């Protein structure tokens, strides 16, 4: 099992994307639901910081997974896994990253 641990990182990177998804689902309700538990003055900072962390962590995971697959696996294993797992994880991560940069008025 240990020998194939690097193969699990790519699905893990994709699976990680459920976290920002869950954040996008729950954060608005925490801030603006019927019983908000986050003060409105915190909403912007907490949300942007969280999205930035999710974006960067997602990028790092997908990059590491892709790197390990390319260096440790044969190409017919690496390439499909990269397309199936890393590319969607990258796409979602860069989408969140772009959102964060827009919200920060940096781009």
């Amino acid at each position, binding site marked *: 099992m240990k*020998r*194939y641990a*690097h*193969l699990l990182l790519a699905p893990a990177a994709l699976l990680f994307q459920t976290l920002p998804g869950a954040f*996008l689902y729950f*954060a*608005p*309700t925490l*801030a*603006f*639901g019927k019983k908000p538990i986050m003060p*409105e003055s915190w*909403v*912007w900072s907490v*949300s*942007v910081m969280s999205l930035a962390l999710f974006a960067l962590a997602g*990028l790092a995971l*997908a*990059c*590491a997974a*892709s*790197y*390990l697959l*390319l*260096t*440790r*696996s*044969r*190409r017919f*294993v*690496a390439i499909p896994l*990269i397309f199936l797992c*890393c*590319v969607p994880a*990258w*796409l979602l*991560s*860069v*989408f969140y*990253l*772009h*959102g964060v940069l*827009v*919200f*920060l*008025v*940096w*781009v």
Partner: protein
Amino acid sequence: MPLLWNISLRKGFPFVTDQPPQDTIGNHTRRPMRPGKALAVSLLLPCLLYGSVVLLAGDRLFVFSKTPPGRESRAALAIRDDVIPFFKWGTLLFTRQYLRKHYAESWYFTQASKGDCREEFASALKQALENYPAVDLYLLAHTNHYIRWVKDLPEELRSRIRFVYNTGCHNEPQGKDWLALGADAYIGHPGVSESPFFYFFLLRHWLHGATLEEALALGNDGMHLKFRQLEWTTFGRFQAEALMKESRASVVGDVGLRLGDTAP
């Protein structure tokens, strides 16, 4: 035999080890890709994907752009009506920092119910009008009549209202009323509009120095692009032209106004 077989996380990334590839079978032990090349591919691919996301968004990037002059003499108020939490959250995330960066002072209100924040809004607007020669209003709400909240203010203060953007459906005809009240320019939508698509482009371009006329054209073009993308991805379920007919924004008043123009 190659000197370096692999890169392993076990000794800390990216230390080099002499371990062979771990999912090799039989004699197929050649390294699939050199570490340097693998690293380049793994870093380049997300950069390309970022570029594609930017292209898909359909708007130019304003990388660390400067605030147009006259920031110290303008203020802004924005109000979001009582909608689902996700819309309130998204509007706040997008709007707040833009206003903070480009206006000396800004107020942002999120209504918890219809009519909520009326006193706070009127009080903040009065304060803004007393202290700044140019005040812009962003009415980020469904069909609305916030104009009633402003009518009671003294005329000399109302004349400092510069630009009003109203996302409300069917609120385009309010333009003449806002101008009569003292505003210099007004942008609204004619029908059941999908104004968030327009607002994204309008706010970015207007705050980065475009005239209202230019920002309006860019906003309508950007919105049209989004509608065409929507039509394409939903196999025609959404009709871009029909959506545009309802949503195409128009401006009345001083169409040459820029954010940097501070004269009321």
